[in-house]
């Protein structure tokens, strides 16, 4: 599987979309190195749930639109940076087959103060969930596959901003 990586010239924004797993500690240290003027780092990780409304799940398959995904995540990161004066942003999103409890996504941001860091990270997640071109397919224990429907609650979370 191809790996798509893009770094801003300043490395303030780092975005990766790839099948490979990530390590929170490594990403945190990278953020810290890129954040000499910051007093706060917030990192969020999203995991694969082992259930849906219909029962237990074996895992998910994540599809994306490679040419658009990085562009879209970059635009979201830039918006958050401008809005909360973030110093650095890291977004890692995995694609392909993932098992229950696997890590799916990491969003990490640094800012001068904690409110900006919390809000910036939340803004990026809320926008990522409603705008970045990823699609989840759930795989049941029995092996059946079903596309996941978009949730109104995700749209409402985004509309708060």
């Amino acid at each position, binding site marked *: 599987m191809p790996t798509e990586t893009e770094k801003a010239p300043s490395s303030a924004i780092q975005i990766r979309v790839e099948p490979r797993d990530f390590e929170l500690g490594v990403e945190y240290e990278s953020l810290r190195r890129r954040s000499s003027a910051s007093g706060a780092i917030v990192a969020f990780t*999203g995991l694969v749930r082992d259930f849906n409304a219909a029962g237990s799940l074996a895992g998910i398959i*994540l*599809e*994306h*639109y490679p*040419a*658009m995904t990085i*562009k*879209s995540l970059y635009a979201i990161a830039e918006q958050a940076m401008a809005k909360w004066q973030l110093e650095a942003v890291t977004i890692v*999103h995995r694609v392909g087959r993932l098992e229950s409890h696997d890590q*799916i*996504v990491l969003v990490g941001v640094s800012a001068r103060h904690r409110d900006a860091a919390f809000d910036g990270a939340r803004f990026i*997640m809320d926008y*990522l*969930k*409603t*705008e*970045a*071109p*990823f*699609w*989840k*397919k759930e795989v049941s224990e029995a092996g059946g596959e079903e*596309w*996941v*429907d*978009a949730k109104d609650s995700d749209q409402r979370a985004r509309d708060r901003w």
Partner: protein
Amino acid sequence: MIKVLFFARIRDQVGCAELDVELPDMVDNIDGLTGVIKAQGAAFEEALSDPNLLIAVNQEMAGGQTTVEDGDEIAYFPPVTGG
């Protein structure tokens, strides 16, 4: 020639991931192009009539009135569900 891409459930419905479409002279926007693709068969007609359908032109979100030109990449997909 226009490169048309389908993703996720929409791709499953139309039965292909990619399509090359010759843009007729009269057609210059998304609504027009969507009409041309729908005419290719019942599966296209049904999938592209989905009220929640999203469309991107050259990897940017677009609407029915967005201009389409020869060489553009158009993508049709359902609401996104990442994260």
